[in-house]
């Protein structure tokens, strides 16, 4: 089951990158996120699965599709011929390295378990409080960025000033 979900995740992620229509690319990414969410559920990371499914597969996909619809540009992304081959080659090389090196390497490493264990809320509130402050900061930065970039009052006309 894990292997099936993993293959689905990798396949749809690759399609999202290779696809030349933005809409199809966004949908492939959403399907890849669903596979990832299912994988997380399967492995017992329920909270991570819920976040992945709701935020990445749901919210982000809606944002992508809205943005694509609003821009109304043609979906094709112009690319050079070389660029079309870069990702498949990189992907193939990564898969070879993964099969030849990483599997053998990770098998040799005895993982230390449990120094950051506990329930989700316990980990978040008791062990990772500092990260929580950082997350608040990241969200604040996003909100402030939207306020600043979509502000109503006139800009400064810098674009014209540039040579």
């Amino acid at each position: 089951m894990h292997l099936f979900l993993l293959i689905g995740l990798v396949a749809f992620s690759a399609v999202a990158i290779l696809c030349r229509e933005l809409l199809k690319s966004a949908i492939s990414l959403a399907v890849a996120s669903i596979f990832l969410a299912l994988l997380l559920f399967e492995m017992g990371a329920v909270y991570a699965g819920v976040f992945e499914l709701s935020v990445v597969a749901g919210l982000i996909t809606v944002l992508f599709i809205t943005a694509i619809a609003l821009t109304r540009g043609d979906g094709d992304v112009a690319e050079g011929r070389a660029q079309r081959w870069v990702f498949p080659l990189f992907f193939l090389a990564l898969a070879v390295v993964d099969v030849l090196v990483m599997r053998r390497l990770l098998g040799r490493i005895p993982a230390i378990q449990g120094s950051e264990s506990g329930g989700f809320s316990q980990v978040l509130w008791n062990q990772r409080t500092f990260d929580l402050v950082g997350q608040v900061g990241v969200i604040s930065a996003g909100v402030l960025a939207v306020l600043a970039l979509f502000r109503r009052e006139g800009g400064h006309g810098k674009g014209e000033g540039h040579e």
Partner: protein
Amino acid sequence: MLFLYIIVPLLLAGLLPLLGKLSKRLLPDLLASAAMLFLLVLTVIGARPLISGGGVIQQATWFQAPLNIRLLLDGFSLLMLFTIALVSFVVCVYSIGYMEHYGAKANYYALLLVMIAGMNGLVLSGDLFTIYVFLEMAAVASYALVAFGRGPDELEAAFKYLMLSAVASAFVLLSIAVLFAVTGGVGFGAVAQGLKTLNVRTLVGICSALFLAGFGLKAALVPFHSWLPDAHPSAPAPISAMLSGVLIKVSGVYAMTRVFLGVFGLTPALTTVLTVLGVVSIFVGALAAIGQNDIKRMLAYSSISQIGYVVLGIGIGTPLGILGGLFHLFNHALFKSLLFLNAGAVEQSTGTRSLDKMGGLAKVMPVTAVTSVVGSLSIAGVPPLNGFWSKLLIIIALVQAKMLTLAVLAVLGSVITLWYYLVLQHQAFFGKLNEAWKSVREAPFWMSAATVVLALLCVAVGLAFPFVVGTWLQPAADALGQGVNVALNFIGF
């Protein structure tokens, strides 16, 4: 007390969009500058005495109630806090005049403060994952600040910056995930102890490569530099100063140094990689700067070159090399911020960034011209200014480490730097005054005041360099010189 470095800018950032409704200019200007002055004074008076006995861990409190947040302060993080606070304060003062024509000052300062809180959080963290979170916090704010002008150039540069920065973050996160899987922790102490116990060299090599690519992208080290020449010139001048002056150092050099020296321990292989990348950056940045006609683009390429010196010094790994690298990091924050602020003043007065169209501006903008000359001579390493001493320390460290070829190349790089900065000064400020600029006036008071402060600091640090080294830099070099022992002392952090 250390929590104030994060919570003060973050709270003020939350309040500013609301306060901006009451007062569009005065309150945002006043509060942002006051907050930065407060953090600067706090660093000098409050934080510096804390490290007299070495590094400290401080538990954060909220209205005297303890929080599950522990902050790590040692000489290296203190130096970074000081650099961030100093440059941020000057940038806030400069922004009073410069940001007038952009509008939305409250939003601008709010984003700037979030970026500063992110950088402060990063340097006070003793945990790899927390470093990643605060790295993202500073990065998200910086994307918006680069695009703040909303012109086509700014938006394109911000998008490019965002894309490459996301790749960098992915490399960093992947490396942290691998280390967590192997060692069972993400705290500096837990990772250092785990790697020591397990003796997994290949894995450390892979993680080092991932961190190098991730933090190298953030630091704009060659060959990971392609985003910087677009992003830094496109941003408003004070943001260019913040990005080149401190952000690339905090999110790139600081994080890389902390991991490589403090958690992994510097190996001969890492020394070779860092010194070679440092020298390559010096030359690629300097040679690319020579051909630039856009003043801010030239400065951006120069940043790549100067970051090369910092990485070269730290990469040597000897006490003197680390000291020289850190000294150059601090100096570069001063003179590169100064040069970007000057470029902003020129651009605002003339409406152009093209060096071909300038000329003779010293006659109409004397303060900007003089401070710009000081900045250029400092960055080129002319004695007795601050840049001379830091470059000298790096070159002596290279000679001591028997890296003579690299020492010669470092000197050569400095000569090229002097050359293109003299060209910049000649084209912009000297010679015959272009007819079009006869009606140009000196930059407004607050902008000039900020550049004068930075120019004076370049001179003062150069003249009083033993004091600056003893007070701020030696504790930082000592902290790094202890290698992984600092992290091992903080196991369970």
